[in-house]
């Protein structure tokens, strides 16, 4: 069974370099773990300006209510992927990812 390993900073660096597209098997395992559906609110992006600006928000599972917006805004979708990756890493590791 795959288990999260907070010493595998190489996977974080790999994701940061290319958050979309082909990943190494170990990074793909980690992403599957991070994206596993649960009963907790999950992150999404709300378009503020078409193709220009997106706000991080959280949706309740079940699609029964609108997303709850945060104060975090992105102008690049790759930045958004990296930001959420860091959030999830912190949750799994119990500490901040030591990579900006």
């Amino acid at each position, binding site marked *: 069974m795959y288990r999260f390993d907070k010493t595998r900073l190489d996977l974080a660096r790999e994701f940061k370099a290319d958050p979309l597209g082909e*990943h190494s098997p170990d990074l793909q395992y980690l*992403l599957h773990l991070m994206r596993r*559906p649960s009963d907790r609110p999950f992150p*999404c992006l709300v378009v503020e300006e*078409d193709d*220009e600006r997106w706000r991080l*928000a959280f949706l309740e599972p*079940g*699609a029964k209510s*609108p997303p709850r917006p945060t104060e975090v805004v992105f102008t690049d979708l790759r930045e958004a992927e990296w930001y959420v990756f860091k959030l999830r890493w912190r949750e799994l590791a119990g500490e901040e990812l030591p990579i900006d």
Partner: protein
Amino acid sequence: MSVLLAYADRWSCRPGDRIRFMVSGKGAERFDARIVRLRQPRAGRLASPFAPEPIEAPVNGSHPLRWQSIPIGSFAAVPAHPALHPEGSFALALLVWPTTPAGGRQMLAGTWCVASRTGYGLFLDEQGRLEGRIADGEEEVAARADRPLGARRWYRASLVFDRAAGSLEVRAEPLSAHGFDFDRPSSGRVEARLGPIRGPGPFLFAAAQAGPARGPSAWGGIATAFHFNGRLEAPRLVSDACSPETVAELFAEPLPARLATRLIAAWDFAAEIPSETIRDLGPHRLDGVTVNLPTRAVRGARWDGSVQDWTRDPRHYAAIHFHDDDLVDARWEPDLELEVPAQWRSGVYALHLRAGDGEFWVPFFVSPPRGTARSHTAFLAPTATYIAYLNHRSRFASLATELYHGRLLVLDRTDIVFLEHPEMGLSTYDRHRDGSGVCYSSRHRPVQNFRPTGRHWNFNLDLFIIDWLEHVDGDYDVITDEQLHQEGVDLLAPYRVIVTGSHPEYHSKEMLDALEAYLSRGGRLMYMGGNGFYWRIAHHPTRPGVIEVRRAEGGVRTWDAEPGEYYHGFTGEFGGLWRRNARPPQRLVGVGFISQGFDKCSYYRRTEAARDPRAAWMFEGVESEILGRDGILYGGAAGLEIDATDPALGTPAHALVVARSENHSNVYELVSEEVLVPHGASDATLNPAIRAEITFFETPGGGAVWSAGSIAFATALPWNGFDNDLARLTTNVLRRFRDPAPFAMPGERG
């Protein structure tokens, strides 16, 4: 924040047709409307500028805005009749298979009116216990069973009012023959000394009447409440204070003579399954209607696996499955009406609405007069596929979307309005609230994902194809799936080239037959997408714009049909993949669905076959070996859902694969129908079967087929202002396909 929603009564128009627009909103007093012709999607900085063409129309201007609610939830209704209100003792009995027994108060059947608190009704209470309720206008009595019903188990449920004894009793007898759950009869009895039980109106199944509707009504001008989730079968109403043994006898065939004389009604839900009629076999002929299209052709209490096709023995399918989130028609009052002028060119149009800070689009298609063409080229709008996807709610329901797509879920304001208004209903990609799959979809309601904005998928991605046709020379007509189903090959015959959408996934037999007939008569088909011709659908026999999908046997699917329910209720045809009906897409267009991924798109590499003289003409002016490396959506032309050839599934032996994609990510997995034995080597980094293939072949009648094999293909055409090799290749194909000179089959060449 203003809310604005709208829909039209038709999507396919011809000059002289009248189209009505229904509008609803709040947060503003008025809305502005204008007709536009759509020539491209709103797709950001890299795409063609979004510039809908203003069209003069009498509906353009400012109009008063009002709120119209949506009466969601299915039920069945029998119009009021004196026999439905027995003065003496009576019994109401039926078979019930609840799916959300603890999901809130639900009415199974009766005349009970929530507003006037009169009539009689058989309910499930908040805990899922059977409850009978009667009232004479002065006094109200309720009897409740002592334990709840289980979910997805059959029960014989009854309400018996014994006027002589002054009692009301309810009873539920478990009928399920399989399984080892602990279950036993439940019952409840109370004293009931009332005057004549009267109700003001009709008899309903699966909902209670709630007085006159204050807005749109699904049926009869009434509002409804306490909708039921689950199946009902064989309701009986008799003027007799039945014992439990006698209640069981009510379901015997034939009915014992002593009970037949007391029969008021015996509804047979196995009769006329494709229709919206319910038949009463009793002496009063108390026929009724289903409302909001509950699911028919579903397993009933009698089903034992000996019948899989409901048309063979409908008695095994004598149940109707009701859902509190069924919706076939929002039934709004029209706000605007327009006669399509003769001078409008064929094309993709929309009513663009604004109110306060709200915006909404209602697209529609204008075709030439029937039997005529104004161009040699027709874009075939895949309206059946659009309908299948309308209001795809489960996309927003969990992290599963991010898992499948390999990227974060993105929503815009229209998506959020949709989440705030679940009464807009569901798509055939969703499950009902009770977990059962949604097998019907209708366009007669406001929809969130049929617009030139937002996520690039289906309609909003097909506008890239329109953009390309506009760029080439603007010489094209627009026709639709709905017309294809109704008119057959006659719709296609006037055209030299049919250009498909990016994802023409759903086809009825009539549609597929028409395309095959067109090709066999020398027609040319440009299949501009991926995962086409995949699922079989049935159209409703009397309601245009309503389709049915049974997700049977296999295929990539978000739900699977229940055992024994693989046959369409509308037509009796076997549903599921066309591949399972021995008509795989590879037979029609050379390629078929092989994989999907939504994180990143890739490119094609030219093959040796591209140098074959049969194909060389399409590469004139095309210099690069790599095609479609850049795309407006996710970076390339090959992606989202992709198709490959397979001779075993019918790719013609002479088909040429002129370009093949490579380098897809590990989000791309083989489709499930290709993985009979799971082996773990099914993603694109390990499995070479995953590729998109641009494929060409001639047909014996002088026609030809050219397939792109990728949904993302169209998004790469406008790259760099259409100055790219992929656009040149595609335009070469269009021009040659417009040329009437017949294609020769390889063996026919001198």
